[in-house]
Every structure is written in C-alpha cells, then in structure tokens.
C-alpha cells in the first residue's frame, strides 16, 4: 500500500511539473495555450479521482471502472447509426454492465470471463427475435456486441485486476496502478515524441497524427518506465521489459482501433466530457487493449 501512495505522489509531482512548465511557456511566449491548459487540468481531475477511488477500497475502484465503462459505451452507442428497434437491444446491453462489474467485485472469475462473450452474445440475438425486425439484424447485433466487448468486457479487466490476491507481497491494486500509469504515460510519450520528431505517419488513413517516431519513442520510454516502476510488481527484469513493450504496442493499437470507429462514423472526437481530451472514449481507447492483455499475461504467469 505504501508503494501505491508513493506512486500516487510521483504522479502528482509529475503533474505539478507539467503545470509549472505550462506556466513558464505561457510567460515566455505570451500565448494562452488554452488547449494544453485544459488538457493538464483534466489530467489533474482524472488522476485525483482515480487515485482517491483506488485508495478508497474495492467498492470505490470497481464503481469507478463501471461508471467509466457505462459512459464510454454510451458515447459509442450515441456515435453509431442505429435503427429505432435497437433501443431495446441497447437497453439490455446496458443492463449487462452492472452485472459484469458485480462478478468482478465478487471475484467470480468463471462468470466474469464468459458473461459478455458468451451469455450476452446469446442473449442479444434472442432479444432481436422479440423485436421481429429482420432487416439490419446482423449489423445491429454485431455493433452492439462489439461495443460491449471493447468498452465493458475489456475495461472490466481493470476491476478484476484490482481484486486479485497478493502475489509475492504485491496486491492487485499495485498491478492495476502499474498498468494504468504505463498506458497513460505511453499515450503522453507518443504525443510528445510524435510532436517533436514525428514525420512518418503509420496509418495516415486512420489517424494522421500517429507516427512511427512517436510509436518507437514511446515504446522505448514506456519500456524504461516499466522497469523503473517494477517495484509495484512481482516481475523479474525481463518480465517488466516485456510488460512495458506489450503495453506500448497494445496501447498504440487500441488507440487506432477507436480511431477506426470514429473514421467510420465520420467524427473527430467522441465527445466533450473531458476538456482538452475529447470524449471518454478518446481517453480510454488504449486501455481497451492494454487491460485484457496485461491482465491475462499476469494471470497466466502468477495465478
């Protein structure tokens, strides 16, 4: 627990540094840097909420992730084109969220891991039969199930991770903090390296801002950070390096996957819930990929 507090302190120190740099930049250039200012302010709020709730205990942490899932999938459902009858399907999908997080809270692994991929997968088409609308059945069921997989099932791995029992003196909360800090730092590293060195776009059609330089720079930096934060985990040095590299790569892919959706429906930001960041989808996009991968890696090796 002390290690969690220490890491929380480091995060807040880092944010203070960012705020300080912003002030200096503002004074030097006389420009307001409004977007960057809003972004850093939002980081303060998000980091504060996250740290406070994971320190408050399991209920707070699981509740936070459930809320994040709900808000994210709501943004997703708002974004995609739907038929009128899809409201009923989506209603049932929403009801699956509290249950998914209940299994995570209870630590009922078997149910947690099949609830959305199996039971919801079987339930949604059943509900479709009741509506009787055959046209667009496949597309609608696919879209709803896919959103539930990415924004509820994937994200709920954070909640289950939190509840994992201690391994070599390291509790789930430490692993969770390790994963989230690395994922978010990787986003920031990508942004910084991309802004300063970025030249070769990786996937110009999907997200023109993503560059090879940004990815590689972040890959190196995240892997090093993973090593530095190893004190939160039972990892050996090679394991920490592998975890860092995996998080950097998966985070990059997750980010692009959410960009794919936005491209498909033709919007830039998924919302405006988080000033300077866009919607909640824009913030958790990388986590949708890093959370399940990291979780299953850890679960396979240590549990």
């Amino acid at each position, binding site marked *: 627990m002390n290690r969690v507090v220490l890491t929380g302190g480091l995060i807040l120190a880092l944010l203070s540094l960012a705020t300080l740099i912003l002030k200096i930049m503002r004074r030097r250039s006389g420009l307001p840097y409004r977007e960057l200012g809003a972004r850093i302010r939002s980081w303060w709020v998000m980091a504060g909420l996250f740290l406070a709730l994971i320190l408050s205990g399991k209920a707070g942490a699981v509740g936070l992730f459930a809320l994040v899932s709900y*808000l994210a999938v*709501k*943004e997703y459902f708002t*974004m995609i*084109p739907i038929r009128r009858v899809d*409201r009923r399907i989506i209603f049932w999908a*929403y009801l699956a969220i509290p249950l998914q997080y209940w299994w995570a809270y209870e630590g009922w692994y078997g149910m947690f891991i099949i609830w959305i991929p199996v039971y919801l997968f079987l339930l949604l088409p059943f509900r479709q039969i009741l509506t009787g609308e055959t046209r667009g059945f496949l597309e609608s069921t696919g879209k709803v199930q896919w959103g539930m997989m990415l924004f509820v099932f994937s994200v709920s791995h954070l909640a289950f991770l939190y509840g994992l029992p201690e391994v070599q003196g390291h509790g789930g909360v430490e692993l969770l903090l390790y994963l989230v800090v690395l994922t978010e730092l990787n986003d920031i590293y990508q942004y910084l390296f991309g802004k300063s060195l970025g030249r070769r776009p990786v996937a110009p059609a999907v997200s023109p801002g993503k560059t090879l330089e940004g990815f590689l720079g972040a890959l190196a930096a995240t892997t090093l950070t993973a090593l530095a934060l190893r004190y939160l985990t039972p990892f050996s040095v090679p394991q920490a390096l592998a975890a860092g590299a995996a998080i950097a790569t998966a985070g990059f892919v997750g980010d692009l996957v959410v960009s794919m959706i936005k491209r498909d429906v033709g*919007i830039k930001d998924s*919302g*405006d819930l988080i000033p300077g960041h866009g919607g909640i989808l824009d913030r958790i996009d990388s986590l949708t990929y890093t959370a399940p991968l990291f979780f299953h890696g850890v679960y396979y090796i240590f549990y």
Partner: protein
Amino acid sequence: MRLKTLFFLLIVRPLLLLFGGIRAEGSERLPRQGPAILVANHNSHLDTLALMSLFPAATLPRVRPVAARDYFYATALRRFVSERLVGILPLERRGVRHQPGHHPLDPLAEALDRGEILIIYPEGSRGEPGELRPFKSGFAHLAKMRPEVPVIPVEIRGTDRVLPKDEALWVPFIIDIHIGEACYYNGSVREFTRRIESFFRETPQNDIPERFHSMATKERSTRETGATASTASLRSDRSGFVATKDKQLSFVDASHISDCQSYRVKPTIFRRTQEGDHHADR
C-alpha cells in the same frame, strides 16, 4: 425557492446527467434575461426538459415553453407537471376566434413584455424520430409583433433516441443541443419562417448519403472556418435527421440560405450591426 427550480435542480438535471448527458454547443448564447424567443425542433418530451436544464436556476422561472392547453392540462397530473413543475405557457388551440382588437398570439406577446423567455416548437407537435416537419409560422408572427425580441434557433438531437414519441422505455444516449445566434425579424413572415427553418435543415448536400455527408460537412466546416472539433463532431452527428421520407421536405433552395443559416458553416463572417440585424460580410 420555487417548485419549478427545485424540480430542475434536484430531479431533471441529475437524471439527465446520469441517464443521458447533454453536450451543449453555444450555451453562452442562451439569454440570461428575457424577452427572447427560442425556436426548437421537437421529437420528444425530453426536448423541453433538456433545453430548460441548460438555464441557470436564476433564469429558469422566466423560461416558458409554449404548449397546447388542451393536451397538457387534460388530466390533473399532467396539469400539475405542466403548470407547476415545468411552467408552460398554455396556448389555446381550439375555439380561438379572431375578434377585432384581439390577436390569438396576444398572451405570448404579453409574456414577452413581462420579460419571459418563450420556447416554441414550430413543427406543431412532436415528430417521429429523426423527422423534421415543416415549420408553422406562428413564431414569425410573434416576432413580427415584437421585432426587437431576439429569435434564437436551437437544434436538439438525440432526445428521439432516449425517449422517442410513443415510447415509455428510457434508454441512455447523449443529447446534443446546438444553440444558434440570435436573429431578428425582418422581411416577411414567410421569409423569416424559412430563414429560421433553414437553420435546422441540411442544405446543399441533401442527396449525399448520411455517412459521407457527415464527413464532407466536417471537412468543409473545419477547412473553411477553422471550426472547433466539437463543432465538427456535433454537426456531423446527423443521426438520420434527413430521413428518406423527409427528402422532399429537406430540400431548401440554396438561394434562400440567409444569414441565420449559413453562419453555421461560416460562423466568423457575420457581424451584428447596430440595427441588430445580421449581414454577411463577404
């Protein structure tokens, strides 16, 4: 504190926040004081609640949605909600005769004279999801009677997903509200109705399929105006507003796109002159 204010602060706002969520664009253009006429599209009972929830508590008592007395005062419960909680301005639809010296819109004009902010749905009543019905000209007649009162178009999207007409099941979706710039009556009633209506309609690219359309709109708006990302995302979230059966209605002759409409595409090039009118500064 009035019951209406409490209703909005304690029930409507928290409910909408958790089981909906409102993205408002241009809420700084909402009037803090009356008189003003808000003209909005109407597909759900939530339209009124969502729009009113954007007003600060101090202004709320002055905000009066104009609604049909025969429907909203029909039962005791409906009347209680309409009168005490929402504070509608009941409008007599039936049995109104043109008496010399009396205009059917007099009660509305009097409300404006008291400094109230009226919400008017010129489609008459709620449309099917995604449908925008032709505007009736009542609001323009009212604006003609009080030409100094600003008319503010407000586009509401998403309420028809949360709670469509004839549905009781509430399903959470985000509601987008886009508040336009104030317009003042000029020209004729017909022309002014069309001008305000054109704010709500897709204009030049009606025949482009929805998905492509939204991208085109976004790219155009960001390129031409440097519009913010949120503008682009709101504008492109056209979720079926141009329904196929609505195609014919949606067509608006490009020559009629006047200031209040085209500022959406080019928000920066309009200036308000001293007469309070809008002129394109091309």
